Every structure is written in structure tokens, then in C-alpha cells.
């Protein structure tokens, strides 16, 4: 019995790619013969048996093998998933609703739309799973069977952060007593980057010695321009768009941060929340989509975007060590749920369910 994983793309540094590689590593540890396939591969020094998806075809006839299909974007290889005779696990990582890309990128808009529309036609599987409860619920809404659905949290790469060095120049430059507010994520409209800027604008009225790091890849020219114009119109300083950064820089930004602020209105899981827990940064996040599921009872949820109050809350956290420690203690508890051992156990149960 072989276990295959099929993805749309494998890209270095991408959370779903890392998750796929971790599943592969764990399955191999358990003694399975495994493969990973993808439509496109952009990854040097791949650590496992990986190939283009056309090579999966030769395994499709087997009713003994197991396929784990990762769905995060529309991809032609859904037909391989549909036609395979393998036992099938469908893992849903969510797809951003297309409305967020309207007017920004026609191509992304169309791919998101197609991806979400296809979902109803992908329900034929042995077991479905979301990487968050929110994603599992979305599967059920789209016709997947509830009794054969489950949740498998994303495997996180803490080891990478342990092994990489800080960027000391960067650290020294910004370790200057300013309150550093951090957001990590792609610069996309669903992430509501403009709302982060608004929050800083009001916080600066309380504490001028503060700054905002927006760490993530910029890929929508028009949205980028809008954000730059917005910062200029408000006339605030200390907003830093870093674009995509190295792992060393990312670690440094996490180490520098005093508060992790997330105003996003659509997240399927939100890895940076868990990373912030790991780096012991108090989290303030807007209560939307998967965010309350990932935080569970930790961090602080924003129910209404009242910026003056958000600014005051940031000020309280920055000044009140006791409050800050209490929030971090709650986050530490939640972090255990994402422990590698827990996720491995969960994966074991899921494989058992699918195979038995």
C-alpha cells in the first residue's frame, strides 16, 4: 500500500508545501512507501520522492493505495483526483473568495472563483479534512459528508526557526524602545492591510515611538499603490512594507515584535498566529473566518474595528507587563494543540479511518 499526495504547486517556503513535506516525512517514519506529485514544482533540493503530477497516473488504478489531495487553488489535476481508484483523502486549505480580488487581478479572481465553484464536485472521497474547523464546516456546506470529515492542523516548522540565525543588523536597527507592531502575510485585499495602517495611525497619537512591520510578499500592483497612497494621505511615518523576506529576517521581525496585529477578514488557518504564539507575542486579531478557531480561547479577538479603542488596547498591552504575560500564558496553552506529537497522532487516526 502506497500513500500519494497530490498538490497544485510545491513552492519553497509555502505553508502548504511544508505541510505536505511533513506529512510525507511522518508517513515514511511509520513505514509507508510515499510519493508527492504536483502540477508545478519550484523547490530546490527537494527532500522527498517528488514528481510532476502526470507520473501519478500509473498509480491511479490501484484500489489499495491512498491519495491525499491538497486543495488550495483550482488546478487541472483535480481530474486525477476525480478519476483515481485509490482511497481518497481530500484536504481543504480554503480558497480566498474571489470578491477580494475584484478590480485588482482578473486572473486570480477567476482562479479563486473556479476553485470555489469546483468544490461541490469534489465530494466523492473516502474522508475529507480541513486544516481548521472553519474549513471543515465549509466542506460540509459544500456537500461533503459530515460523518467522514475531520480536522488536521497544519504541521509547523519550528525547527527551521531554531536553526536559523537572527539578522543582527536588522535587530539592532529596530530594537530601540519603539513599540513594534507586526503583521505577517501576503499583501492581499482580504488581509485588510489598510486597517492595520489605520490602527497604527491612532496608536501613534498615544505613542509616537511606534512602528508597523508588514511582512509579506507584494504581488498586486494596484493594491500596493492604494496602500502607499493611503499611508501618504494619512501622513504617518514608520510603516514598513518588507515584501517577501528570508527566514532569518522573518525570525528577526518576530523577535522584535511587541504585538501581533491581524485585521484579516478571510483566513483558512493563519499560520502567523501560531508562529506568534511560538515567539510569545501577544496577539490581537479580528474575529473572522478561521481566526477564532486557530486562536481558540487565546489572544484577543476584535469584534468591531473601533480603531481608537484598538489603539488604546495596544497601549495597555505595551505598558502592562502583567496583562501581556497573561495573554502570552493563554497562547502558550493553545500552542500545545499544534505540537508536532499532537498533529502526528491526529494524522494517524485519520489514516486509520480512511484505510479501515
Amino acid at each position, binding site marked *: 500500500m502506497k500513500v500519494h499526495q497530490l498538490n497544485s504547486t510545491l513552492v519553497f517556503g509555502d505553508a502548504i508545501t511544508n505541510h505536505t513535506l511533513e506529512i510525507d516525512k511522518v508517513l515514511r517514519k511509520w513505514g509507508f512507501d510515499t510519493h508527492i506529485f504536483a502540477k508545478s514544482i519550484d523547490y530546490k533540493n527537494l527532500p522527498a520522492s517528488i514528481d510532476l503530477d502526470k507520473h501519478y497516473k500509473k498509480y491511479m488504478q490501484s484500489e489499495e493505495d491512498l491519495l491525499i489531495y491538497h486543495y488550495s487553488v483550482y488546478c487541472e489535476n483535480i481530474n486525477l483526483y476525480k478519476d483515481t481508484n485509490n482511497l481518497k483523502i481530500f484536504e481543504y486549505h480554503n480558497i480566498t473568495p474571489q470578491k477580494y480580488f475584484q478590480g485588482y487581478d482578473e486572473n486570480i479572481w477567476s482562479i479563486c472563483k473556479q476553485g470555489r465553484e469546483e468544490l461541490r464536485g469534489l465530494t*466523492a472521497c473516502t474522508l475529507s479534512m480541513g486544516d481548521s474547523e472553519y474549513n471543515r464546516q465549509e466542506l460540509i456546506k459544500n456537500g461533503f459528508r459530515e460523518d467522514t470529515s475531520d480536522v488536521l492542523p497544519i504541521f509547523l516548522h519550528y525547527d527551521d526557526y531554531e536553526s536559523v540565525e537572527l539578522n543582527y543588523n536588522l535587530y539592532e536597527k529596530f530594537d530601540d524602545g519603539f513599540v513594534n507592531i507586526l503583521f505577517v502575510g501576503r499583501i492581499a485585499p482580504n488581509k485588510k492591510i489598510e486597517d492595520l495602517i489605520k490602527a497604527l495611525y491612532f496608536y501613534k497619537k498615544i505613542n509616537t515611538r511606534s512602528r508597523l512591520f508588514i511582512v509579506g510578499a507584494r504581488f498586486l500592483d494596484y493594491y500596493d499603490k492604494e496602500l502607499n497612497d493611503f499611508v501618504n494621505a494619512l501622513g504617518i511615518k514608520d510603516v514598513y512594507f518588507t515584501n517577501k523576506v528570508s527566514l532569518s529576517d522573518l525570525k528577526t521581525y518576530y523577535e522584535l515584535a511587541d504585538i501581533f496585529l491581524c485585521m484579516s477578514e478571510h483566513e483558512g488557518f493563519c499560520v502567523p498566529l501560531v508562529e506568534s504564539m511560538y515567539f510569545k507575542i501577544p496577539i490581537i486579531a479580528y474575529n473572522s473566518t478561521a481566526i477564532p478557531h486557530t486562536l481558540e480561547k487565546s489572544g484577543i479577538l*476584535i*469584534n468591531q474595528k473601533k480603531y481608537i479603542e484598538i489603539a*488604546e*488596547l495596544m497601549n495597555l498591552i505595551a505598558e502592562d507587563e502583567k496583562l501581556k504575560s497573561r*495573554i502570552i500564558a493563554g497562547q502558550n496553552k493553545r500552542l500545545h494543540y499544534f505540537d508536532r506529537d499532537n498533529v502526528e497522532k491526529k494524522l494517524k487516526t485519520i489514516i486509520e479511518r480512511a484505510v479501515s
Partner: protein
Amino acid sequence: MMDGMYLDTFEIHDDEIDVEEIMRKIKDNIRMRKQKSGSSEGGSNEVCQQSDSAPCNAIPVNAKDIQKEFDQINSNWDIGNRTYAISSHRPILGRVLVKGRQTIKGEVGRYVDPMIDKQTEFNRSVVNILSEAYRSIGELNISKENAKDVKPILAAFENQIDQKLKELLGQIKAFVNAMNEEVENRAWLAGLLEKRINSSRAKLETSSGALDEGQGVNYFVFEERFRGSRADIKQRQAAFLQFFERCHAVLDIGSGRGEFLELMQEHGIGARGVDVDEDMVSYCRAKGLQVENIDAISYLERIEDKSVDGIFIDQVVEHLEPDYLIKMLSLCYQKLIYGGYILAETVNPLSFFSSVNFYIDMSHKKPIHPETLKFLLESAGFREIETRFFSPVPDDMRLRKIRAEDAGEEDRGLVEVYNHNIDMLNAILYGAQDYAAIGKK
């Protein structure tokens, strides 16, 4: 206490954090800042600098002072003044004075000298002890200085040994844990695979047992052999999708290997199936399809009226006894919503080819004439009934006609008659293999 605090703006789920208090502070701060906003903004960040003077309860004594004190003790310990000579500068009175003083000295000395001697003795002892102590302290200080150099080396050494031991222990532990984990994982995988093999074997035994007892065939294997691949069936059945577009609750009676259920799911049509064959049901469920192991009448009797919006019955009616079929169609009508389609496809008995093949399947009861099925649907209450023929016999298996151009001019008439007859024969012998009767409620 409720599970977490839900206030207008924020939500915190921690019993030890008083969210109301936080909100009160936030509101107060906002009010305060608003009030201040009229005045200059400066001075909001007052820096409180505390003097860092350390408490000073003792006079500091340093080594130099001690040396000075010690020198003084050393030179003054002898309080007996033995060098003192009694004399006087007065030439005449001096003699008397000297004599008097000597007398007094002698008399006083008799009482005082022993005390001075004792005090001097005591002082000497004290100074000796102090000297010894001072010297010892000096030596101790030197040792201490030396020890200072050795201590870190020893500590580092101890640390190193400790570290090495810990590392070694860690390595042993990790090795043992890894071994345990490896054994556990292999055992788990073996268990999992064994379970899977046993379930396949059980299935096989069930089906072969059934064959031995003459109770039927393994229909799953049978379909694989004679009906065609799932892909072929799906391709053929795609023509039926048009009757179920935008449906949410289609019932597939005798769903078999689930080809049509899968097709419907792929097209976003909500559907479920029923089948009496346990293997088929297991197979469909493994593919994530909603199928129940139950016969059609029992299922239809159980569900609410007008709860399905389409009914699909493919290659089923020919397996049923007439009474069962009539009752089933009547229930289908009862359970279907108004405007919903029923589609029943079966073997076409008008074709000799398919009539012969009809008997390949031992579970077939009898073929049903299209007109009969049409009548039965009508009797159940369905309207707008039509029949459509599917699955033509491939041309290379049919009787061939003569091409008119291959015949001479004089034979054209004969060829025409011949070809007409061939058409008639082909229709009887090699007509469409299946037909579907389609009705609407």
C-alpha cells in the same frame, strides 16, 4: 462565570483577565486624552527617574585603613614606660623633687606596675594573636585569589563533565525512544494492513460462500467483467444528467458501483443511493458516496412524501418481480416532488442481440417491453412519458449493406431492396441494447 468575556469591541477568554476593567481603562484613557487634546500634547510621557542611591549603613573599611590601625597597635602595645628617668632641671629644689618623685614612683609603682605589666602582657598577647591573624588573613587572601583562578576552571570542568553526561544520557534516551517509536510505528502499520487484508478476505469469503450455496453471484465482480469499466458507464450515463440538473435530492435506486452518483456529485447535484448488494455499498462508501444497504421499497416507505426531486433506476427493473416493480413505481410517484423526473433504463428486448445477452446475468428475472414499462409509469401517475434508445451495437457487428455504387446500373433496384431488408434485420437483430423510459410527475 460565562466562558470568556464578550464586550462590544473585544473578546478575551481568560478568567484571570478582567475585560471590563480593561474596557474601563480604555474608555478613561480616551476621555482623558480628549480632554487633553485642547492643551499641548507635550508632557504626556513623563519620565520618572528614581535616584539610585544605595543604602549606606556601615562605614566602609578598606585594607589600607586596617594596615594603619594595625601599625598603631603594634607600636603602642607596650604601655610600661621603662625608659622614663626621674630628673629635674631645678638646680637646688631639683634634688628634693627627684627624691620625692622616686619615693612616689616607688610607692605608686608597687601598686600600679603589676597592673601595667599584666596589661602589657595582655597587649602583647593580643598583638601577637592579631599579627598571626593578620598574617593568616593575608595568606588566606592569597589562597582566595589563587582559588579564584582555579574555581572557574573546576566549574567549567564540572560543567563539561555534566554536559557530556547529559549528552550521553540524552543520546541513549533518544536512541531508546527512537527504537520504541520505530517498533510502535511498525506494529501500528502492520496492524493496519492486517485489518485491511482481513476485511478483503472476509469479503472474498462471503462472496465465495454465497456462490457455494447457490445464492447468487458476486455481483461486484460480475459487473466488472460483463457490464464494462466504470469510466465507460459514466460516459454512457452522462446523457441522463440533463433530467436532474439543479436537483438537490436525487434517489438512485440500485446504485451499484456508484457511477451515476459520482457523476451527479461532480456536477453539483445532491444525490444518494440504495442498493441491496453489500459489496457495492461498501465500495461506494469507500468512495465517499452516500449509499444505504436497503431495498428500494423499504427505503421509499421510510422517507417522507415529496422528499426527492429526481429518481434514477438504471438496469434494475429487469431484476424485479412484477408486483414489486408496480409497488415500487407507485411509491416513486408518491415520494417525488411535482415536476421531478423518473428515469428507468433497462435492456431493450426489441433487439435480438441484447435479448440474447440478457441471459448472461442470472439475476435477471425477465426483460420488459418498452410499451410495458411506459404503461406501468403511466399507471403509477407519471405524465409526458417517452422512451429513448441507447447503446447502439457497433457497426462492425451489424449486417453490412451493399454500396449502391458497387452495383451495376441494372442491379440498383435489387440493392435498394436488399439494403432495406438489411436495415430491417439490423433493427431486429442488432437494435439498441438499452432503452430508457422517462416520465415526469
